[in-house]
């Protein structure tokens, strides 16, 4: 059981790391889609079927497409998708910060007295989940709905606002 998890985790982390270091922006986004699919596979492995499919639908089906669209909208020419590398020092500092955070978190995880695992996954059907969402968590559901609406309206205002472009301004 643990071998499956280790393989999944290594594949997911590998795609994420490569995606973050690639020059070509579109390749990065497509590889990150694989990362998100790997996380969905992890949810499936853990027995959270609904979350896995929701993750696939939202990340692979919607977020990745929106990001790809943004990549295509914000470039001058076809070769513009190759993001220029940042300064070397910046990369070194970033790697140091990432390594430090990973070290602290890993040390905490391995030293913490964590409770042992139950043998079986807590059985939760979709119907039960729906009841929980509309019952005990109804207020948070409402808050998330308001947040999504506000975010959507805000995004439209941000992206569509601004003065009309001058004809000669387009690249």
């Amino acid at each position, binding site marked *: 059981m643990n071998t499956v998890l280790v393989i999944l985790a290594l594949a997911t982390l590998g795609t994420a790391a490569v995606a973050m270091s690639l020059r070509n922006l*579109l*390749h990065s986004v*497509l590889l990150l*889609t694989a990362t998100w*699919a790997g996380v969905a596979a992890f949810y499936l492995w853990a027995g959270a*079927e*609904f979350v896995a*499919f*929701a993750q*696939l*639908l939202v990340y*692979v*089906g*919607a977020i*990745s*497409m*929106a990001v*790809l*669209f943004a990549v*295509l909208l914000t470039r001058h020419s*076809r070769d513009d998708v190759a993001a220029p590398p940042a300064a070397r020092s910046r990369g070194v500092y970033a790697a140091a910060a990432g390594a430090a955070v990973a070290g602290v978190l890993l040390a905490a995880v391995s030293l913490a007295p964590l409770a042992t695992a139950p043998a079986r996954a807590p059985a939760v*059907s*979709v*119907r039960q989940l729906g009841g929980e969402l509309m019952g005990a968590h109804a207020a948070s559901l409402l808050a998330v709905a308001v947040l999504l609406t506000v975010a959507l309206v805000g995004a439209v205002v941000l992206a569509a606002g601004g003065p009309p472009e001058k004809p000669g301004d387009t690249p």
Partner: protein
Amino acid sequence: MRLLATTDSSLLERAPVLLRDALSGLLPPPARWTANALIEIVAILAVFGTLFAFLTLAERKILGRVQNRPGPNRTGWFGLLQPFADGIKMLTKEDIVPHAADPVLHYLAPVALIAFSLLTFSVIPYGRDLLAVRMDASVLFFFAAGSATELSVFMAGWSSHNKYSLFAAMRALAQLISYELPLLLSVVPVVLAAGTLSTAGVVAAQSGWKWGLVPHWHVFTPWGAAGFAIFMVSALAESNRSPFDLPEAESELIAGHLTEYSGFKYALFFMAEYFGMCALSGMAVTLFLGGWQAPLPALEFVPSYAWFALKLLALIAGFMWVRATLPRLRIDQLTRLAWKFLVPLALINLGTAAFWSLTYPWGGSLQLLRWAVALALVMGPFLLLGRRLSAGLGARTYRYA
């Protein structure tokens, strides 16, 4: 009811399952589960592969009939061998990859497309006992797997390094994001009414007949009819079929994302289009047309998978008829149809479905009121929004012509 009990166990009904068990029974018990799964995969591949071959022929024949020409009729009897001739042609053609193309993505796009469109077949109940994967959230799985196919269309268009393909990729993204929304929103009322996300549960919720005559299919309720219409229009767009085939509009973009594909890779795209059409039609049958259920109690002796196949073929014939009849939309009309017409209608339809299930216990004359209110909720917004939608579609004035 007695009739149902006798036909329930008819040999013809159980024949596919019996055949599978007989085949896997030859193996030792530990291998049986794997063998069963493999047999189911092979069966789905074989059935839909053959269906694909003959659907291409049927489409060409139907298009020919509508356009007053014979269609393919030279290869074999009535052109019946045409799909096999096409297959041999596709397989033996040279596979050309443009020099400037992104080689990995160019190769990966058709493979990912066909893989994800095949995944969607696993959760459709083809008959009383014919369902490959039983899951609690299978409706969600269907749309999650289906949404991944859109990514491959983009990959194909971008990796080809061709301006027409790139246009197609942009159009495909815009179109598929726009129509994903009404597609999903038209399914939500069904989930609400059936109270389950599993395809088998949705079919079970549509069993039985009112007065022994009208089946309890969702399409025979006001919200179900509206939802079915929205679902089919969005399905047309999601499977890139005419009149929504803008990504591959041959009159303006050559073949869009398919321009730089040849040989077997092109055949894979072609296959995936038909698979997508079959899967979405199968889902429409499952969600709105009662799945494998017979339309009349007296017709229950016909095996359930035959009913499913019949409904599926009817919907696919509808797809072909639409393709032969309607002209292609412009890209702005396409997105306007989705955002200003289908999405609001689908949202209102959700309200109608909620009203319908809340008023379930109403009886007698209140039932008439229930129908009247639900019909008004469906027709009113349709007429109002439809008038706004067609307001700007008068005769065009060409300023520079």
